């Protein structure tokens, strides 16, 4: 099944009319959806296109949240703080990417996971700047509750649309082509002239920029952040599940996956509060075993290449 990107863009723009029909609860869901769409589409660049199992989303998100909160606390206007947070996360990704993207498989996965751990520890310890474990309050916004709900909804949706445009551009550009080469055979890529290090770092940065801004937006939205909340490992894992749900390495997949995941998560939260994480776990296990077009389709492709190698040795 392929969904043309233009339909997804149209759907995203349609969502913008949500405030006309929904109450604050619906708006909250809409904001969550937009945020998930940002995270999933961003992860898709490094994880789906380049095939690097990154668990760094939480690092970018948390860093963005704190950068935005601190800058806003120092008087920077909110939209500029969001922008700056994205840039901070992007720079962090460029630096860290240059250091860890030569690692493969599990080693890369662990290194990217540890980035969030280290940032969590640093944020918790650096009390003078971040408030440490006590968390950080954001400046109060003088606006009605309804107006705020709409503002953050539109802002987050705008960010999701921007991320979508980035993802669409990547898919049809040299960058996307290079990343698909890297995912399928990294050594052969460099032999056909792909500067693999450069494109991997670009992918890592693209997977961080919008997540950083989303973190800052989230911070402004919820008024109060604390390290375990914004650096939660779940923030790294959820986008992966969404992309697996919708289809990795496609433009539409992550958005569809984000919507599907949000629906499931909401149903689970409402009905199984005390065991919601176990139900989420069950969903993940079920997704891996029973969703034919999700993960298993991906595996089947891998197995096919494996079978070809054995054919070759037999020849």
């Amino acid at each position: 099944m392929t969904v043309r990107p233009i339909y997804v863009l149209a759907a995203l723009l349609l969502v913008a009319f949500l405030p006309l029909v929904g109450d604050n609860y619906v708006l909250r869901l809409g904001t969550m959806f937009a945020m998930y769409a940002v995270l999933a589409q961003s992860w898709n660049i490094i994880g789906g296109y380049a095939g690097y199992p990154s668990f760094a989303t939480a690092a970018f998100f948390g860093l963005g949240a704190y950068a935005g909160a601190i800058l806003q606390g120092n008087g920077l206007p909110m939209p500029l703080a969001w922008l700056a947070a994205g840039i901070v996360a992007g720079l962090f990704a460029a630096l860290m990417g240059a250091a860890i993207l030569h690692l493969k498989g599990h080693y890369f996965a662990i290194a990217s996971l540890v980035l969030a751990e280290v940032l969590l520890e640093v944020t918790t310890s650096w009390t003078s700047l971040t408030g440490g474990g006590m968390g950080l309050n954001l400046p109060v916004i003088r606006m009605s509750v309804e107006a705020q709900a709409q503002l953050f909804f539109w802002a987050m949706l705008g960010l999701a649309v921007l991320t979508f445009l980035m993802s669409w551009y990547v898919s049809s550009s040299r960058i996307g082509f290079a990343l698909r080469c890297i995912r399928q055979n990294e050594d052969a890529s460099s032999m056909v002239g792909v500067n693999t290090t450069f494109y991997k770092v670009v992918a890592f940065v693209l997977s961080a920029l919008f997540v950083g801004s989303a973190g800052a937006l989230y911070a402004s939205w919820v008024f109060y952040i604390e390290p375990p909340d914004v650096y939660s490992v779940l923030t790294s894992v959820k986008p992966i599940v969404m992309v697996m749900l919708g289809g990795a390495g496609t433009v539409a997949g992550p958005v569809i996956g984000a919507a599907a995941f949000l629906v499931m998560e909401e149903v689970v939260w409402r009905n199984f509060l005390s065991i919601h994480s176990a139900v989420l776990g069950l969903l993940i296990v079920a997704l891996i075993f029973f969703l034919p077009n999700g993960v298993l389709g991906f595996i089947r492709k891998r197995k096919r290449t494996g079978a070809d190698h054995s054919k070759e040795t037999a020849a």
Partner: protein
Amino acid sequence: MSILTLKGVSQQFGGLRAVDDVDLAVEPGEIVGLIGPNGAGKTTLVNLVTGVYKPTSGSIEFDGQRIDGLKPYQISRLGVARTYQVVQPFPEMTVLENVMAPATFAAGAKSVAEARDEAMSAIEFLGLAPQKDVLAAELTLAGRKRLELAKSLAMKPKVLLLDEVNAGLNPAEIDVALEMIRAIAARGVTIILIEHLMKVVMNLCSRIVVLHHGAKIAEGLPLEITRDERVIKAYLGNRYAEANPGGKANG
């Protein structure tokens, strides 16, 4: 002037000297055969020229420019292409997309259309046009070897290193491959051919270089090489070769 010059090139892996003080000069338009028993360091030499490894000592010049120490993608952009002993396609891409990759990145096509044109001309040259929309993973081994050649041709190389392109092919397929290599050489591409099949080497090469335990032990015309005592000892002298004189030396 030589297009590719190796001076005193060595590669050390721990205690093993895989390539030992090799000098080599390749002239434009030549087809040079690189032979030697398994483990002689042939593929390592290819990896040194293409930048996979940086030589422990010595220098490599291509077209008047030092290339040892450059990254593989940089060397490929200068015009050095290679094929792998084990073919390395992008399995989930079509034949056309596979060939567009080198046209885009190594040959620096300005647009998708230009890359597609370049790729198509390489595909047609190698007779792959009917399969251009087939996934690389679905090609036969001979098809994938041909794809490998098309990919390296789309890089518009000046020097092409062919690492056992014929391994695993049947005699009929080998004859076709020989014609293709000749046709590529006729376009003015300098070729360095790593080969186990003496028939192929004798047929194609104007000059042969013999490696043994990483060192160059002989260099000359094909006929001279078959009479060279050191070569016979080191290479043709092994039991398997004696049993199949002039045939497949080892596998």
